[in-house]
């Protein structure tokens, strides 16, 4: 696993602003990893007591997961058509922590911010398509006690290899924190040559 460290230039201003009680973007060390076996990328934002990871998922992986759950080919192809990431959220603090996917935004190259599709929205669509399966997607919102963590898929209606930013939020000790991935990239159609 290769690591690339990126410490955003906003760390110092954020530190100064945090001293006056406002944290626009909490300090984060964002690491980019390249999986040596698959060539796929993942990113990890490490904040004090909170971490968030996005992992590229190939369309074939999505097909395999949903086909094996008995979803119809139509639904499987619908899901495989999305830009999908494995997402891991961890409470590494000694205090409760909460997040809501509805608060997150992805920002496309034109500068537009878009809401991230939630599990509840997916389940409503799946129900209309006769799908009873309710797992695999990142839960909409969770209250994490110390040590709690969760993983699930995050879906974005973007084309293969699209580069975008993602703003995320969480609440820790009653305070809203924000972070941003400056450069996430949707998985390619097939595994890159390694």
């Amino acid at each position: 696993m290769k690591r690339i460290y990126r410490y955003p230039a906003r760390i110092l201003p954020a530190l100064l602003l945090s001293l006056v009680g406002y944290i626009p973007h909490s300090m984060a060390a964002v690491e980019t990893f390249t999986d040596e076996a698959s060539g796929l990328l993942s990113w990890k934002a490490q904040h004090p007591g909170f971490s968030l990871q996005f992992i590229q998922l190939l369309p074939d992986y999505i097909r395999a997961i949903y086909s094996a759950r008995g979803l119809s080919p139509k639904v499987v192809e619908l899901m495989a058509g999305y830009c999908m990431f494995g997402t891991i959220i961890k409470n590494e603090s000694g205090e409760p922590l909460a997040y809501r996917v509805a608060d997150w935004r992805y920002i496309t190259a034109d500068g537009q911010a878009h809401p991230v599709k939630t599990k509840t929205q997916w389940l409503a669509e799946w129900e209309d398509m006769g799908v009873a399966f309710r797992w695999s997607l990142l839960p909409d919102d969770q209250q994490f006690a110390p040590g709690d963590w969760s993983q699930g898929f995050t879906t974005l209606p973007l084309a293969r290899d699209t580069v975008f930013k993602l703003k995320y939020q969480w609440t820790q000790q009653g305070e809203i924190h924000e972070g941003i991935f400056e450069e996430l990239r949707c998985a390619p159609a097939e595994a890159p040559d390694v």
Partner: protein
Amino acid sequence: MFNRCLALILVLCAPFGLLHAELPSPELSHELNRLKTPVAAPDFSLEDLDGEQQALNDYRGKVIMLNFWATWCPPCRREIPSMESIYQDLADKGFVVLGINEFETPDHVFAYTGQLSVFPNFPILFDLDSKVAELYGVKGLPTTLLINKQGQVVYRAAGGRDFDHPEVRAIVSELLAEEDGGN
């Protein structure tokens, strides 16, 4: 012939390896979170691997670990050996683990458990429509609950855990040492 078989195996396995290699495996934590207010564990009845119905109430008076899981969930797979270990050590003291599988068939799970390095001997029950998960407010897999002898949910953990950790064992032993309140 041997080479041809080997080539076929490699062709079949290579994409699987590629597809799964990208998923990292975060370390399992061991914290269990005590609920400020214990809540009564609702009863349910589900089929086990043998097709027999098992109800939660069948185990009242024991300390019960309810673990919601699925075979496709990486941390679920990783915590099975630690669950089996604590179950083996404390089963004769009144501790039971119930693995509540979500949305998978007994045939699928049976085939899966046969491939594990540690075979789970605790009961596996099948929540085919996820109604029990809904009943317990489970949002993600794995989620684990500890139910005391009085039938109250007293601990909860979201995400994979190392149940063989001394702190988890101490919590379970403490619950086992409690009186059952005459239930």
